[in-house]
């Protein structure tokens, strides 16, 4: 699509322009990667506590990017982020626990299972043309059923007592800084995938079907196919993160992937950062790492503040904080120069 939209120029100039374009598109990701790389030496040093908090923030940022790809890009309200991460985590843990396969095989199988389940859920939603709300209910029902399955299958999952991961976990769980860099790498990987999808023809289809499904369908976009793509890729991100997280903490229980622990946070932080934006989940996860730390003394107060957060975000910052700030910035610049220079990454 883009190729036809561009005027035909001479090949070297065009490739230089494409390179410049790609560089600008990847600049925010490079900035994030640079910040993540220098954080441990500059700030947390060797404090295991702060590093653990940072790892958790990175994990939730990656969940958020997966969720953002599914919901923010293609309007499928997947209220089963925790369950998908749990499929990855429990899948990997059970497989490497029961068989002699290496942990990497376990992680691969866990990720693939999450991707397949996410794709199937999306396929069902598309085939039965469930709207946003029914997709939300079906996936919510799925996550509750998954939580009960974890509790019911005591032999496999250990129910509330949880599952201790023995091999591989030892390395990652002891070395928090290594875990930090691992999850920073996963996060940057997810960001790159998200960006590449945004820039490719798939991104055009996403924007088209999100803005107006019928118009997109009429313009020849296979809405069903792109929805399933988004769900599969997003679920793979979530499953991979969930599986790696299981190994990094060395111990998982149903609460690790419970709806109120994972989905609520992911929804809130993604909405806070801005649905559909590249860096929204990253900013949201960073902010919420601080908020959580402040509110860690009381779980009930945390619930209360989450509620107030959700309400105020959706009442006052409908487009998320990133978009609102960029919008204000543009307006301030436009007054000086006459035209906006900074575009929200969503456009």
């Amino acid at each position: 699509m883009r190729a036809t939209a561009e005027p035909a120029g001479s090949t070297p100039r065009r490739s230089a322009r494409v390179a410049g374009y790609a560089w600008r598109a990847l600049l925010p990701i490079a900035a994030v990667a640079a910040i993540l790389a220098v954080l441990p030496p500059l700030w947390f040093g060797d404090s295991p506590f702060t590093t653990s908090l940072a790892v958790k923030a990175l994990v939730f940022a990656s969940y958020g990017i997966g969720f953002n790809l599914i919901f923010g890009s293609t309007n499928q309200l997947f209220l089963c982020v925790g369950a998908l991460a749990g499929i990855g985590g429990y899948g990997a843990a059970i497989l490497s626990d029961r068989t002699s396969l290496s942990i990497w095989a376990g992680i691969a199988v866990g990720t693939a299972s999450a991707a397949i389940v996410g794709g199937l859920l999306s396929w069902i939603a598309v085939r039965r043309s469930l709207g946003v709300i029914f997709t939300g209910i079906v996936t919510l029902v799925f996550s509750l059923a998954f939580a009960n399955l974890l509790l019911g299958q005591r032999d496999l999952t250990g129910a509330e007592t949880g599952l201790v991961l023995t091999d591989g976990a030892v390395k990652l769980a002891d070395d928090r800084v290594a875990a930090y860099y691992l999850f920073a790498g996963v996060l940057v990987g997810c960001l790159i995938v998200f960006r590449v999808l945004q820039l490719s023809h798939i991104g055009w289809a996403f924007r088209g079907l999100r803005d107006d499904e019928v118009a997109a369908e009429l313009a020849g976009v296979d809405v069903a196919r792109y929805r399933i793509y988004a769900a599969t890729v997003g679920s793979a991100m979530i499953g991979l993160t969930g599986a790696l997280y299981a190994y990094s903490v060395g111990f998982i229980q149903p609460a690790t992937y419970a709806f109120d622990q994972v989905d609520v946070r992911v929804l809130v932080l993604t909405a806070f950062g801005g649905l559909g934006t590249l860096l929204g989940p990253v900013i949201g996860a960073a902010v919420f790492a601080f908020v959580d730390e402040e509110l860690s003394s009381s779980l009930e107060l945390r619930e209360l503040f989450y509620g107030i957060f959700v309400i105020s975000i959706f009442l006052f910052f409908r487009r998320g904080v990133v978009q609102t700030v960029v919008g204000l910035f543009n307006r301030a610049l436009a007054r000086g120069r006459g035209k906006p220079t900074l575009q929200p990454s969503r456009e």
Partner: protein
Amino acid sequence: MRAVVLDGIVLGLALGLLGVGMTLVYGLGGVINLAYGQIVVLGAIVTSLVMDEGVSTVLAALVGVSATVGVAVLLDLTLLRPVYRQHGEERILMGLLLTLGAAFVIGGLLTWRYPIGALFVNVSGEPVSIVGVPLARGSVWASVIALVVAAVLLLFFGVTTFGRGIRSVIQDETGSRLVGINPSLVRKVVFALSGALAGIVAITYSMSAPLTVNAGFELTTFALIVTVVGGLGSVAGAFLAGVLLGIVNAVSAHYIGQYITTIILLGTAALTLLVRPRGLLGR
């Protein structure tokens, strides 16, 4: 077996009321009130606090019901105002997220202030024998109240002009406006009604087992399942689905086990959505 089914019916009637409270609000404009379970819990906590002051149970129950009515109407007047200004999926989504936020606020406040709060209405007296099965007095009262409320509701919606007016808004908002019905007034009445049902459920539920402060999420889930299976927007459907699911729940929990039962209930809801999205009695 008979005892189990009877228990299921008692639970099912309470679930039916819960479903009606949620389905009415949904039918009115596509808002799924995810704070519904928390409103029920609020009614229970208020009632138990008033009862602790030494007030009689009936009076305390009235105070509890008025509290839930108040909160429901307040929700309509404040938070849901901007929601009803939206249309289509935007409205549905915003309603879902804002009521989810309200659920956290109410639930968080209650568990913070009353971490061990619970309501248990103790109905004294000998068990009553029904079809040869002794049934606790509390369960009998709960069922009678639920049946009376159900009958009153069905009469209200079937016979009175105002009840029909509400149904017309549910069927077609624009059309009802054209024949002179005020949708905003109807909405207030429906929210009050939904709040009253939440209060009543809090009382009847706690007649057979204590209703604890953290039951909100579970109650919302139950209400959602019942509403979905009964057909979003259908009062009779919600009752029917409530009783059916109550029986399924009791029988399966007795013979198979609780975890599988929950999965069966959730599976029923998912299957209904996929096979017959309008539910048992939905339009």
